[in-house]
């Protein structure tokens, strides 16, 4: 999106740092595990089973990964729809986070699909099943990944010096942005709707007809948290000035969203009468309180306008909210899930975890590559000008 050349610049610098090396090694380890997965089947490396057919790869890599990727979505929403142009410096980094979140989620889906070689059936209009939430999620995620790359294309074109192509993109950008806002709204809520059909298999602490709303709000929340966290990390990591004022304002919005989520969650639980379950001493109840704590504490941290733009508060609250979003998703998908037809256990196996770590490593390595080689980060002097 943001076409303004000159506002953004490649960071430059040495690519092969220690962080880059560790991330690459993690990815290589994952690649070995994946070779095993494709040779011997999912069961050869993962602990997913007939009771827990969805495990780490779906919940963390896809459901949580795309929520991280909502950074691009919330910034587009803020900058282009709500017309808050002053957030513009945060757009490209956010877009990049979204780009990797979604692209790698797509990779994870292919890894996780049991019959991946028939993936194209999802695009066959004759076979598309309109009632399926999964179809909507699949197509939306696919489409949004393409949109993200198109939105990010100007950064690459700028780097390549293709001015004319860049201008064409600029002209059509409004449509891309509109799609880039619509699609995540659809599928991030649908990631919650996915669970509605599971009925009694999901504990009443999480099962609700409000799941789509809760997941959408939570995704927006995680998107903001990613923007803030990434900005703070980038400024310290690359020794760049922190857009403190801007982040302070973003964090204010973030606090409001967190409040909305908490209110919705608590009202929903009370109306359904599910609260007693939170006090029965089970693992589910414990995880519920972890989830609530991770949302309440950052809200308290951000409550004071004076502290809101201080880097430690910014970073801590963003990190806690991200953790809260992660725990909420793991809770809804795995902890709160009680499989039908038997007592099943699931905990990710070591190779399974290594794949997730490897994808994370790939994400870090690519991020470093992109910000150093492409105009992603805001030029400090440009902002001050």
């Amino acid at each position, binding site marked *: 999106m943001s076409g303004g050349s000159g506002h953004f610049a490649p960071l430059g610098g040495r690519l092969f740092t220690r962080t880059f090396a560790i991330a690459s090694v993690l990815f290589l380890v994952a690649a070995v595990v994946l070779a095993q997965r494709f040779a011997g089947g999912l069961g050869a490396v993962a*602990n997913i*089973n*007939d*009771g*827990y057919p969805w495990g780490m790869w779906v919940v963390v890599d896809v459901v949580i990964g795309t929520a991280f990727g909502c950074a691009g979505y919330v910034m587009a929403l803020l900058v282009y729809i709500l017309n808050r142009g002053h957030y513009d410096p945060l757009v490209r980094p956010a877009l990049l986070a979204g780009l990797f979140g979604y692209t790698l989620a797509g990779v994870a889906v292919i890894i996780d699909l049991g019959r991946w070689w028939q993936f194209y059936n999802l695009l066959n209009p004759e076979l598309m099943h309109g009632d399926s939430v999964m179809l909507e999620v699949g197509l939306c995620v696919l489409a949004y990944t393409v949109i993200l790359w198109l939105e990010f294309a100007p950064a690459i074109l700028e780097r390549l010096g293709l001015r004319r192509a860049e201008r064409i993109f600029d002209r059509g950008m409004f449509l891309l942005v509109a799609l880039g806002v619509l699609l995540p709204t659809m599928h991030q809520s649908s990631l919650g709707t996915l669970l509605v059909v599971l009925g009694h298999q999901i504990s009443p602490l999480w099962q609700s007809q409000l799941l789509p709303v809760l997941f959408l709000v939570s995704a927006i929340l995680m998107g903001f948290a990613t923007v803030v966290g990434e900005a*703070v*990390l980038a400024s*310290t990591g690359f*020794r760049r*000035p*922190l*857009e*403190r*004022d801007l982040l*302070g304002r973003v964090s204010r919005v973030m606090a409001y969203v967190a409040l909305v989520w908490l209110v919705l969650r608590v009202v929903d639980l009370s109306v359904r009468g599910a609260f007693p379950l939170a006090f029965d001493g089970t693992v589910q109840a414990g995880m519920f309180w972890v989830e609530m704590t991770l949302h309440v504490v950052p809200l308290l941290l951000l409550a004071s306008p*004076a502290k809101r*733009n*201080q*880097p*430690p508060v*910014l*970073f*801590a609250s963003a*990190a806690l909210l991200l953790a809260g979003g992660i725990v909420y998703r793991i809770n809804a998908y795995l902890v709160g899930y009680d499989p039908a037809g*038997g*007592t*099943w*256990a*699931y*905990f*990710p*196996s*070591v190779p*399974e*975890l*290594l794949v997730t*770590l490897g994808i994370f490593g790939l994400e870090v390595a690519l991020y470093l590559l992109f910000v150093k080689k492409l105009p992603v980060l805001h030029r*400090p002097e440009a*902002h*001050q000008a």
Partner: protein
Amino acid sequence: MGVIMRDGQDSGTVPDHYDTRTVGDPDGYDGALGGLKRRDFLKFCTGVAVTLGLGPGFGIRIADAATKAERPPVIWLSGQACTGCTESLLRTQHPTLESLILDHISLEYHETLNAGAGHRAEQHKEHILDKYRGQYLLIVDGSIPTGEAEAYCMVAGRTQRQSVEEAASGAAAIIATGSCASWGGIPSAAPDPTNARPVNAVVKDKPVITTPGCPANPYNLVSTVLHFLTFREFPEVDDKGRPVFAYGRLIHENCERRAHYDAGRFALEFGDEGHRKGYCLYKLGCKGPMTYANCPVIGFGDVAGEGAWPVGTGHPCFGCTEEGVGFFRPLHSLSDVENVEPPSAYPRVQAEEGEGVTPGAAAVVAGVGGAALGAGAVMTSRLARSGKGDGGDDSAGDDNARE
């Protein structure tokens, strides 16, 4: 008076390969049971002990009892029966009948086997009942007609009921052998014109051991008798008076075709592929699942050995030993499975499955979680420190180009 010519002199003919002079025969086992060599005799006694569930060590005690000089007198009365139980007993091999009745017991009266006849036989019976009152063993086969039909079975002017009552009054112990004597058997099945009753319906003041079967397996009868001779008491019995060693388990539990039942392989009709392959006969009406007997373990008539019993020959068990099953249930009707508990290998409704936390996985998760937590904390505190270093002008709102 022995009922059969004593042939004990055969015991002198010891096989050539066995030299009693070098080994000796201190306890007189050699030549016992109608001429068994010592080793085979002890083997047999040990076999009896094991059949009774006593353990091989008891073989010697059984051997001692079997070679004792004094043999207990036995009175055998037959009621409404087909003589099948006697016929079956005649064919017993372990031991042979002659050794049983000549060396172990003194069979004083048996209507089929009596050497004497008529008044002479009856006189002898009276004599024994008198002389050995309280010591003799009473064995009964066949059911007893009662009520108006009591007169349908009379020997020597006395009804069977009177004979049994009289003999039972002085008996040391009573064994009812065969299904007729045990619970009524064929005569008691509809229309039951003689109002046939088992022994324990007539003799109520004394315990009656039953060894049902049609005919009764002689091995079980002989084992019960030898147990009595050895220990002066009967083996453990169930609530129907049946020795537990023989009738403690369902035929179904020890059936040689049980594997087919468990795997769901059934003969569906006689002569079909499953039948030819020896599949389970449940669907053809096998009563094994509701009949208590040891047929699958020791074979049927103690004649042809293992496999020689109805199921072994391809016909479903018809439940001859079981009251209310044999002669009462249609031959090919389904039986109720009387397992007291379901097989333990069956999956539970709530069987547990799946891989839980492994130490390695826990370590990885803890490591990643800890690293994230640590990095977050370090990051926050570093930011906090650098924030202080900046001075207190955070609220100025302008971006600083320092750290």
